[in-house]
């Protein structure tokens, strides 16, 4: 099992795409190989979606949610981080599971809504 202290890796602000990319590079290969990764967020205070999108949401491109549920452990994540991460995962699941037709349908709904405003 690989234990990663996120604060040591990127500092106390987990906000940018670049920092998310750093995290992704640390964990992606390990998870692909079937290893278990513990992400310890102790001491990380601020979280924003670009970090989680690039670091964790993107894992869903080639790893199934069941694999991540079993092999990616999240520790000491604050309530703020918890809320942001859940929203990012929810969005990533939709993103990677939706077809281009589905995305077009969302676009047309937006068009129809604005036409009546």
């Amino acid at each position, binding site marked *: 099992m690989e234990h990663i202290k996120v604060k040591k890796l990127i*500092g106390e*602000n987990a*906000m*940018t*795409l670049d920092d*998310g*990319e750093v995290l*992704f590079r640390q964990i992606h290969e390990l998870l692909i190989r079937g290893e278990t990764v513990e992400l310890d967020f102790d001491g990380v*205070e*601020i*979280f*924003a*979606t*670009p970090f989680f*999108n*690039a670091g964790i*949401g*993107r894992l869903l*491109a080639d790893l199934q*949610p*069941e694999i*991540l*549920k079993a092999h*990616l452990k*999240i520790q000491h*994540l*604050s*309530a*703020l981080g*918890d*809320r*942001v*991460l*859940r*929203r*990012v*995962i929810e*969005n*990533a699941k*939709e*993103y*990677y599971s939706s077809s281009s037709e589905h995305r077009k349908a*969302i*676009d047309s709904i*937006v*068009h129809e*809504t*604005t036409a009546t*405003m």
Partner: protein
Amino acid sequence: MQVHFDFTQCGFLRPNAVVFLGGLVRIINDRGGKARLDVSTMQQGVRANLEINGFAYAMGANLSPWKGNSIPYREDSFQDENGIVEYLKKNWLGRGWINISPNLMNAIASQMWEIYTNAFDHSGSGVGVLSCGQYFPKRRELVLAVADFGVGIPSNVRIHKEDPILSGKCAMQWAFTRGTSTAKKLGPRGMGLDLLKEFIRVSQGGLAIYSHDGYARITKDGEFYQDLPVFFEGTLVQVTLRCDDIYYSLSNEADPAPYF
């Protein structure tokens, strides 16, 4: 080319006007022109405000800023996340105008960062990102304005959707729909503004965005989009927070459900 700014008819410069003015000056200078801010035409209050918030100092005046009710004028040419978070926590949220816990301060700073990250990621602004704020004691409101002078939201959406005649209103509505993003790198994007909108609604604040020919306003009462009759070369975001802690609630409990 010399551009002369006359402030004769100006009674007050709100933070959005300050960042807009700062951006204009930088653009004019960038393009080889010269901007001249005519201090002699400024009413005393306008001049004092620009001195207090550090705008005058940033423009080359030999005046050290002080704080008063203003949140300092700031220009960022690169994504200095630690510096911007410090600015938000210390100069905007940490001045005692709003009584919030350190956890809530982190949460609000996190939401505001989403504005900055959009400005840095999407705009390609040649003059960076400009910020300024103000506390309005009578209204008990805390305002932050963030501007870039880049390609703008409608333009990015039109390119992304390959729809060059999409109206500014429709483009703004698309950009503020949950899960949409014009960004292509590093996986799915687009939840930052969704979280920000949710926060604004719950805290009964306000969010106004001017971008090229599109305008969006988000309040507790809903979302409003319209075409702008004038064209603003960039994106200007203004956030208004209520300074009463009863509007802010944040659970300190993480959700026990699995993430995936």
